[in-house]
């Protein structure tokens, strides 16, 4: 034991002391603030390094390295029962209809590869979707001339949103039931979701269970909270 009578002596003085701590702290803060503004550019550089690593180690199956984040607004995530699930089509239509999952799958199938943009900044490139175009879907219910928009009601209560019929006629808009070659996973909206690549993700309603044709667009869940009704990528919500 060291004697308490003799406190340890300093072997040397603080030679060449410099105030580097605050410089480091402020430097990190500066880098962080720069990242707030140039995060996307920095991300494109760093992901070139991290993505191959994540792919090689299998981390890309765990962390959302490809970009997906799962956003929900309700306290439970809707579940899908193939036997009982129905898609209700009503509103300003000549023939209201309820489609089973198998009836939906019997409609002409289309596939596309498109980019998914979230309004919070993340992007997923090259998503392979499979589903039906809306003109094929809506043809069976005979929309009335007074119908100009569709109200999408999600099984995730109270989520909903609107798209105009012109939006739905864009060539890359679909009601998707497959994603990357597999049935749409639960967290991505099983069994069906809207895919409209040129609008931010909140317009791509998940867990769609009812489509009601209406005279005009209303304000959906996020639009009631300040987001733009027409959520064009790069030209809405403060972007562009």
């Amino acid at each position, binding site marked *: *034991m*060291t004697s*308490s*009578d003799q*406190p*340890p*002596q*300093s*072997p*040397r*003085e*603080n*030679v*060449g*002391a*410099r*105030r*580097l*701590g*605050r410089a*480091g*702290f402020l430097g*990190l*803060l500066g880098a*962080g603030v720069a*990242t*707030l*503004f*140039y*995060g*996307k550019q*920095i*991300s494109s550089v*760093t992901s070139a390094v991290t993505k191959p690593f994540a792919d090689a180690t299998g981390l890309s199956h*765990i*962390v*959302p390295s490809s970009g*997906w*984040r*799962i*956003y*929900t*607004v*309700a*306290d*439970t*995530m809707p579940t899908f029962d193939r036997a009982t699930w129905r898609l209700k089509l009503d509103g300003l239509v000549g023939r209201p209809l309820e489609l089973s999952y198998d009836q939906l799958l019997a409609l002409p199938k289309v596939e596309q590869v498109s980019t998914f943009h979230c*309004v*919070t*900044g*993340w992007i997923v490139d090259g998503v392979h979707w499979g589903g039906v175009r809306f003109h094929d879907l809506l043809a069976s219910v005979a929309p009335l001339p007074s119908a100009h928009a569709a109200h999408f009601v999600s099984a995730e209560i109270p989520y909903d949103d609107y798209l105009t019929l012109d939006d739905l006629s864009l060539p890359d808009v679909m009601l998707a039931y497959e994603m990357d070659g597999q049935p749409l996973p*639960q*967290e991505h909206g099983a069994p069906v979701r809207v895919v409209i690549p040129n609008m931010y993700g909140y317009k791509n309603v998940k867990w769609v269970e009812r489509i009601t044709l209406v005279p005009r667009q209303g304000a959906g869940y996020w639009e009631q*909270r*300040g*987001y*733009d009704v027409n959520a064009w990528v790069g030209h809405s*919500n*403060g*972007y562009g």
Partner: protein
Amino acid sequence: MAELTTAPPRSARASSRPRYVQRFTLTERLLHWVHASAFFVLLASGLILYLPALSTTFADRPLIKDVHFYTAVSWAGAMILIALLGNRGAVRATVREVDLFDRDDRRFLAGHTDSPQGRFNAGQKVNVIVTAAFATLFFVSGMLLWLGERNTDIRLGGTLYLHDALMYLSVVIVIGHLYLALINRSTRHSLHGITLGSVREDWARSHHAKWLPPERHSNPGDKQVTVDRAARTTDRAYKEKLPPS
């Protein structure tokens, strides 16, 4: 500057009675543990919000978001309150110690880990600086995400990326921190200091040779007084050692 105390831990009361030196004040320990506790709650709730695989297991995202948000707000409030109401002299002294890097510190960071170190070694100083900067950036970017959900004018393109990058870097740092504090035989005694305040004097001499106890105190009841004095002494020593600016 260290203070000696003869107050031993329960395990040392048998025969050898090693001498202990007070390393951290109650204020410093509270700051550490409030920060550490909040970090792990924020990490757990943040990962549930972040990882797609966990989104189906913990589907109640609004609840998890509330846990994440209110933990962050509580953390910030608690840290400020502890710093203001606690031993401010000790906090100031710690900030100044961490700010100062001398030649031995720079040699330590260059890989010469036998360079004599003060109460904080250079690696610990870097850890404090990075942790403080990251905590500030976590809070700012988190608040921007929260506010940006309510007002799209506040949202910045890189906010989410910054928050995510801070998480990845922090996890790496914390793993290293936990290894040194819990597993590495040579350094893990430091856990005693950050939990109970004191460390063995022989350990302090070998790991923090430039941290000098100026006087001996045998009455455990004097502990708070000696700690306050330690803070003032360290503060004075800092000013004396600082080169003229």
